Each structure stands twice: as structure tokens, then as C-alpha cells.
């Protein structure tokens, strides 16, 4: 299997890789601008991010080196491994801004909640692939995937990382809807979800998380505390105007007004400096990745490949949508990176692994069964 098949190289998807490289270049350039005026010691974030990208390409190589179909067999091992990491980080992780999200690996601080997203995609794809009856799932058949999603969901919520936990449920909903549900199941699930949201508001959310949501609903009430991020980000995006303020000339970012500007708010820097035109260009490139991914899903030679690709694409898409919507003030502030664009090793490497899965499915679409 490790023998390199010439057909595999012929079918390698250079388009997808090209899109990823373009997004990567925009990311590095944007990070350079984000920290341009800030004094910092040690390696600048754009250099670090470049290392992560290089690391990510090696991950892609590793992921495409085996047939994706082995993931069906591997998935519970992966699942158990990631859950253990999550538990480990919960008890041993480094506290960062009052949250326990990190595991220090020495050269790299891993945020296990990031691989957990991809792990869930693989797990659900495997499960639905095995169980699909073609007639739609009943509620009883959904108990297992709900539990499979629920365990990492609760562990991550406990960290607390509302954004990632939310992402897991988005992946679950997207993939479950994709494999088709029975109507009664759908209705029951929606009722359940509604009551779950109510419960989590009362018992699970930490005060700062509640406040963020409350602020979002009424941002003017508390401009300087929770509303600050939203207000500043909207000012950055809006003041960009049609053509932007020019690269390295965004005042909001350069003068420190934007918090977290290299991570979750990276897009506001871009929008401020490149304006409406530049942002549309960004959308065009970025969402072509999504649609190309869906194209791969549709062209897969088997259902597992399709499910995997849909899962990976929905994972990237929902993160991107929520992040950009949040930056532009139409969704509350939750910790949610813009995949491939926000600074952060864990997110980037996870996303690159996801890209690797897409490439993997693509290059093996004509391959004979094992």
C-alpha cells in the first residue's frame, strides 16, 4: 500500500492544493500587517504561522499516504485517543485566560479540542456509513452518534470553549441531516435541541459566555466591556470602505484597537485594509475551497468518502461562516477561528489534515477496491 501508485499522482488534486496555498499566502501577509506596529519579543506570529503551514503540508502528505477507507476501521481508536487528550487537557492543561485548552508538547502547544472536531467527522462518517439503511434514521439509531458527539461536546464545554463545542454540534447536525432522517426523528431532535439550549443557558454556560451573548443581543448597552470587541471590529470592517485603507495602513489594527486581531479577528484586519473589493476577493478564493470540497464529495467513488468530505467541508464552512459573521457583528463573539486564516497551530494543522482527507478521497476516486 505504501508503494506509490502512478495513478495516484496523476489524480492528485493540484487545484485544491493551489487554493490552500493562496489562502495561506493571504494569511501570512495579513498576520504580518496585524502585528506590524506591535512591539513583540521572540518569533513573530506570521513566521510561526509559516512553520505551522509547512508542518501542515507534511500532515497532508501523511494523510494522503494511506487509503482513507482505513479510517472506517481506525475510527474508534482515534476517537478514544482524542477523548483521552481532552480529559488530560482538562486536568493538566495550561490555564490560558481562565480556560484549560492547551497541552504543552514542548515544541508545540496542542489544543486537543481542534483535532476533536476532525475526529468527530471521521467517527460520524464511519458510523453513518456502517449503519445507513437508506430509509432514513430512526431516533433509536441516533442514540449512538448522539452519545459519540455528546462526550467530546461536554468535555470541551467544560474547558470552557463554547465555540468549539458549538462546532461539534454543527458538524453533528450537518452530517446527520445529510444522511437523511425520518421526519418524526427530526421533529423529536429539534424539540430536544431546543430544551438543551435552555438547559445549557441555565446550568452550563459560564457568566462571561452568557454576557457575550447578551451583549451581542444589545451591543450598545455595554460598549466598553463585552461589546468592545464587536464594536471595534465593526468599526474596522466598516471604515475599510469600498477599497480599504491599504495594506499596513489599517488604523484600527495598527493602533491596537482590535483585540485578538491576529487570531479570531484576523478577517477584520483584512477587510479594513482591502475594503469591500478585497473582501469579495477573499470570499471568492475562500469559498471556492468549500465548493471544490463539495465537488470532491460528489465525485467520491463510495459513500464513506462522500460523508467524510461533507463532514470536513461543513466543519470548515461553519467555522468560517460563524467567524466572519461574528467579526461583522451579526453573531455573538465566541472563540471561533477562521480556518487557514486565523493564527493558531492547532486549528491550522487540524484543517490541513482535513484538506489531506479531501485530497485523499479525490486521488483515490478511480482506484480499484482494495
Amino acid at each position, binding site marked *: 500500500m505504501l508503494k506509490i501508485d502512478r495513478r495516484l499522482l496523476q489524480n492528485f488534486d493540484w487545484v485544491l492544493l493551489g487554493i490552500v496555498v493562496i489562502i495561506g499566502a493571504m494569511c501570512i501577509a495579513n498576520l504580518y500587517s496585524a502585528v506590524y506596529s506591535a512591539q513583540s519579543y521572540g518569533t513573530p506570529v506570521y513566521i510561526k504561522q509559516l512553520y505551522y503551514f509547512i508542518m501542515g503540508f507534511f500532515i497532508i502528505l501523511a494523510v494522503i499516504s494511506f487509503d482513507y477507507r482505513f479510517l472506517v*476501521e481506525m475510527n474508534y481508536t482515534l476517537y478514544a485517543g482524542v477523548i483521552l487528550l481532552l480529559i488530560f487537557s482538562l486536568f493538566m492543561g495550561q490555564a490560558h485566560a481562565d480556560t484549560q485548552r492547551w497541552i504543552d508538547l514542548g515544541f508545540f502547544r496542542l489544543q486537543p479540542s481542534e483535532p476533536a472536531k476532525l475526529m468527530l467527522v471521521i467517527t460520524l462518517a464511519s458510523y453513518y456509513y456502517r449503519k445507513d439503511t437508506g430509509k432514513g434514521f430512526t431516533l433509536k439509531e441516533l442514540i449512538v452518534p448522539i452519545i459519540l458527539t455528546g462526550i467530546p461536546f461536554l468535555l470541551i464545554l467544560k474547558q470552557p470553549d463554547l465555540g468549539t463545542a458549538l462546532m461539534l454540534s454543527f458538524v453533528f447536525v450537518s452530517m446527520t441531516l445529510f444522511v437523511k432522517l425520518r421526519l418524526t426523528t427530526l421533529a423529536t431532535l429539534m424539540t430536544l435541541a431546543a430544551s438543551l439550549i435552555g438547559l445549557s443557558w441555565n446550568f452550563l454556560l459560564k457568566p462571561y459566555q452568557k454576557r457575550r451573548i447578551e451583549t451581542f443581543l444589545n451591543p450598545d448597552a455595554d460598549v466598553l466591556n463585552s461589546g468592545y470587541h464587536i464594536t471595534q471590529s465593526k468599526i474596522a470592517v466598516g471604515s475599510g*470602505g469600498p477599497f480599504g485603507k491599504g495594506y499596513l495602513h489599517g488604523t484600527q489594527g495598527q493602533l491596537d*484597537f482590535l483585540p485578538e486581531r491576529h487570531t479570531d479577528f484576523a478577517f477584520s484586519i483584512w477587510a479594513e485594509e482591502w475594503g469591500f473589493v478585497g473582501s469579495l476577493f477573499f470570499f471568492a478564493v475562500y469559498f471556492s475551497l468549500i465548493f471544490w470540497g463539495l465537488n470532491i464529495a460528489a465525485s467520491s467513488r463510495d459513500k464513506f468518502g462522500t460523508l467524510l468530505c461533507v463532514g470536513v467541508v461543513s466543519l470548515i464552512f461553519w467555522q468560517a461562516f460563524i467567524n466572519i459573521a461574528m467579526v*461583522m457583528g451579526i453573531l455573538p463573539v465566541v472563540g471561533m477561528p477562521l480556518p487557514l486564516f486565523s493564527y493558531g497551530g492547532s486549528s491550522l494543522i487540524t484543517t490541513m489534515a482535513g484538506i489531506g482527507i479531501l485530497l485523499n478521497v479525490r486521488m483515490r476516486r478511480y482506484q480499484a477496491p482494495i
Partner: protein
Amino acid sequence: MSRRLLDQINTPDEEELTVLKKRVELTIIIMVTFIAILVVRLWYLQINQSDLYHEKALNNRVRKLQIIAPRGNILDRYNRIIISNRPLFNVLWIRDDAEDPDLVLKQMSHILKEDMSDILGRIRSEGNHPNYVPIRLKEDVTWETVAFIENHSLELPGIRIEAVPSRKYNYGNLGSHIIGYLAQITKKELKKQKSADYSGADQIGKMGLEKIYEKELRGEKGERIFEVNVHGLEQQQLKLVEPLPGHDIQLSIDIDMQRKAEEMMQGRSGAVIAMDVNTGELLTLSSSPQLKLEQFISGISQKNWDNMLNDPLTPLLDKTIQGQYPPASTYKIVTALAGLMEGVITPSTNIPCYGSFKLHGRRYGCWKKWGHGKHVNLKKAMAESCDVYFYHIGQEVGVDKLAIYARSLGLGEKTGIILENEKSGLVPTKKWKHRVKKEGWQQGETVSVSIGQGFNLATPLQICLMTVALANNGKLYRPQLLKAIKDQDGTTIQTFLPEQTGTAFGSPKEFSLIRAGLYAAVNAPHGTGIKAKLKDIKVAGKTGTAQVVHLERYKDVEIEDIPRKYRDHAWFTCYAPADKPEIVVTVLVEHGGHGGSAAGPVAKAVLEEYFKKKKTKK
């Protein structure tokens, strides 16, 4: 890998894959919808609302601080600085510059030793401003507080110290009514001004010369524009416009005379005025009691204000131009002039005074119960202030003729001083009574008017001006408070020349006859004004005792036994030197009792001050 699973993977179900392809298409549609939401929002922010956010971004980083110009000084006629400036330190707070404003305010509450609720209350009272506009947290903080805040500026983002020039009263409350005070501009006043010149927390002259010469004193504000980062730390200065200091105004007031006058009036209420006979320049213009100017610096408290309103000595009333009193015997100058001019009397006309004057069966008493004797001529009548003599003149001349001479001497009309709210006094005529009282004139009323009682009202400044006209043979001048306006280097920008506003009816002959009477009043053995007599300077003057009420029960009672509010007002108006008049001093002591004894010594002290200076100069 189990056999079954591999079989499953290796046998793709084409039909099922077609279904999945359809679902992928559906997924694309859903995602496009969501992307459309993002594009619409992006368009809204960057195209539709772009101007709004552009402005917000500018205000986010650019801070503008106004630099208030040092206000001009107020100098006395010898360039002594009466009012100057001292720096007053205010604590400013810019909301936008703090990430955690509550924490900063908590710290400030500790530093300023004020309750959080007070601070929040002040912020609220500032009204709705954008968050980048500085709010004054506290005014006039101590040096120690300023030093502490400056040293801890890094821990207090958004807190700034503003140094504002504030008034320093080098002579205390001296001349408080002329100088006036500054206070925070009101919303109404703000609307009247050009917005560039004033802002909400600015001080503006509210009274007196501070108000009238606001434009000259104020100067022009400067401003400092600089860029800040999110921590409110200055990144770079973008623009600096130095303020233009205000002009100094030089008063005609001699601060020594003014001080002497106010010392003499300590504990009493009334007015002291000294005017240059030949120019109309005011050397003293003092209303007692003084206003406590320091109380106005950072806004007068309700309690202090109420105290002033309820004070029986009415400190808020400027008695020199707003107090209207019966001119009493000082009015005899008018009556005498009318008598001489109308030919009713000559200098040698004798009118006997047996203590009263009879008209239509009614007795009008002279102040001296047993009369001034058989031979009372003009000089004696003036010197001893014989009422009966002037009753006769008044009766002969008539009220309307008296009014003409009164007006020609400046009574019944505003003097035209620049100070605000001057009252015009009252010179009654038959017409006036008919119009206002809807009654005919009673002949007996002329009797009262001829000795300055009855309907007659005059302000101390009018009496002063009348005395000036008498002393300079009939010239009426506009009372002048200012000598010059100077810029910061002392260069004169504007000077104020004497301005004659009228001429009294009468020739030097009549005036000198009346002046002889005034001279006798101070210098003759029975003169009413002998208390104003100076050692080596000849003084001439006229006393007056204005009845407040006419009550039989207080008729022969000692003044100390009469309740203050029923006591007579005491007048004394004089000039010196008698043979070549230079200066007029007019004194009114409210409820002071007899003019000669209450007001005379005050006038004397002020004259002494004036001539002392002249002597040392020689």
C-alpha cells in the same frame, strides 16, 4: 479489516451515490445562501455605512484636547494686578481609552476620595457625549493628587489632568460688583455662542466686567490633536495650536481708595463712589457688602446662594447703580439751582424758618424742630440743610420745573455706565403721576419733592454725577470704569477718553453760589457735613438723610433703638479741593441714620486716601 466491511466498501452502490450527489447539490444551495448573508452584511458595513464607520474610526484614535487661553488680567489705574490667573487642575476621563472603565473609576474614587455614586452622578450629568469626549471627573484638585495621577498614568488609562487657568483674586473681594465672576457656561449661553469658541465645561463671565469684556479677556483657545492607541497612550502629536492669551483691562479704579472705602463700609450696606471731576473716571465704585468671589470659582453652592439671597444687607444688589433711594437733602442742589435760575431766589433772599411750613392748613416740618431763625439765606440753607427754605422754592417753582433741572443734572436717567442692570431712578412730574398713578398732582407733594423725598428716587452714581456737574460748572460725563485695554506685552490696544453726555442748565455763577453753600456745610460751625472736614484740604459737600418710613413712634427715638430696616438712609456727597475741584466722593449708607454722621466719615477717609497719594507723588 473484517471481511464484511471490506465487501461493503468494495461494492459501491451506484444508485445510492446518485442520491448523495443530489444532497451535495442541496448542501451547495444552503451554503450559498449563508454566503449571501455575509456578502450583504459586508456591503452594508463597507459601502452603505462606510462613512459612519470611517468617522468612528477617526474618533477612535484621534483625540482632541482644547487648551484654554490664559484670561486677561484686570489692573487698577496704576497697573496693579487686581485679578490674575492661577492654574486649576481638573481630572479628565476619556471612556474610550479604558478597556475596563469600571476598574479605573473605582481607582479614581479612591484617589479622589469620593464616593463612586458621586462620580457616576457627575458623569451622568454631563449628558450624552460620544465616548471619546473627555468628561471632567473633578475640578480643582490638589497638587498632590495631580502628582499621584501623573505618576500612575499607566495604571489609569483614559485619565488625564487638565490645567485650566482660573481666577486669582489678589485683593480678595475688593470691587467684587464691578469685576463680577466666572462660572460654567450654561446650555442656553452655549447656544448663543459660536460653537468653536466655547465648549460645555468652559467658564464664562457671568457678571460685571468679566461678563462685559468677556470677548477681550477671554483670548482664543488652542488645541492639541494627537493619536492614541487602545490604551489611551499617546502615539504621536498631530497638531498643536497655541492659545492666544486674552487682553488685560486697565480700570480707572484706584485700588487703595477702593479698599479704604470697603474697609469703612465693613459690616454696613451701601455705596461709595469717587469720580474724577474733569473726566468722569471712576476711582472708586464700591457696593457693600462685597460678594464672596471665591465661592463662585467652581460653581456656587445652593447654600451659599441662599445665604446671599436672604442676607438683609443684600450683597447681590449693586447699590451704586441698582440701589434707588430718595436723594433727600442732596436734592437741594437741584432745588437751589431751579430757584436761582427761575429767579425765585437770589443769594441774598432771606426766608425765615420757624420749624415748619404751612400749606393749605397742613404743616410741613423742618428737620430742626425749632427752626433756623429769621434770617436764612441760600448759603445758610445749604449749610444747615434748612427744609423750610427749599419748601418755599419748590412751591414757587413747581414740580415740573424742578424736574427739568433735576434731569439736566442727570437724575431720572441712566448714567450710561457700562455695567449692566443700571437703574434710572425717578424724577416725578405731574404727567408722570397722572400716567402711572392715575391721580392728579397734590401741591403738598411738591413740598416733599423739593427736599428730595416723596416720589424722588436716585442711585448713588446719579448723585455722584450730579455733584460732578456742580463741581465742574455743569458738565455731565459718562462714568468710566476703564482706562485702557492692553495686550499681553503691555501694549495699549484701546484707550478710553472722557465722554461728555450732557450739560446742566445753569451758569458758573449759579453753580458757584451753590458750591459756596456746600463749602459752608462742611466748614461753617453749624454745617451738617463737618465730619468730612480734612486737615489741609478744603472739602465741600452736602448731607442727606432719606426717610425710609415716616413713623411718628420713631420720631424722637435714638437711632440705635430703631429697628435697622426703619432707620433712615444716610447720604453724603462732596468734592475737593473746594476752590479747584478734582474729585467727587459720594457715600450712601443704607439705614445709616443721619447723613453727616454716618456717611461723612466714609467720604472723608476716601478723600484722605486720594490726597495722601497726591502728596507723596509731589
